[in-house]
């Protein structure tokens, strides 16, 4: 499921307080996301899950905080990857 479709399915569920179904969809998508290598998609799923755990009933702050730490690592890795690519480009451009 692409990012847009996922948000379109999850958002109304959260509004309707169907937190279980929203979580099920997001967790399912999260399990598939690393396989596709789509970091943007994974970032979005983490954002949505954190939002969900911060507003669901009951609140799940511990889960939200754990995922936020994961999001930090994901962002750092993405930046490192971008830096590596930039370094490669410079290397080839100057070769």
């Amino acid at each position: 499921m692409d990012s847009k479709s996922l948000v379109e399915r999850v958002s109304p569920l959260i509004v309707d307080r169907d937190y279980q179904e929203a979580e099920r969809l997001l967790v399912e998508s999260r399990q598939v996301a690393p396989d596709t290598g789509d970091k943007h998609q994974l970032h979005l799923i983490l954002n949505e899950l954190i939002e969900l755990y911060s507003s669901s009933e009951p609140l799940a702050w511990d889960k939200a905080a754990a995922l936020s730490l994961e999001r930090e690592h994901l962002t750092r890795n993405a930046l490192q990857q971008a830096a590596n690519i930039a370094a490669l480009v410079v290397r080839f451009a100057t070769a």
Partner: protein
Amino acid sequence: MPYSKLQTSLLLLYGLRQHEKAAAKLRQAIAQGQQEGDDRTVYTSLSLLGLGSLNSGRIDDALSVLEEIEGMITNRRSFVVGDETNSLEAPEAQKLEVDRGEALVDFGAIQRSKSDYRDLHQEARELDPNGP
């Protein structure tokens, strides 16, 4: 990215109420933000760290944070005063607004007696007009 560390600190602070862990994460966000020139994140993190210090009675730490913010203002770093209201986005933070306003008044009052810090004090007055 320092902003993601700031986001984590907000969850630790307002969600789990783990103040020490949140402060440690804020310090990471500040250090990384200074390294990467992310002034907005640095400013917001400093504001939260200062309030945390103030609320826990660590006045020297709060003043030290204020000096850092003052330094950013003096150096005309690019941030908007009031960015710390991001913290109110956390649902649990809504009910903290009154406390926060009072804390900011105290925060500004300390600095007012120390040196000219009109901007921060003005912001505090807007949040809590009945304050000192």
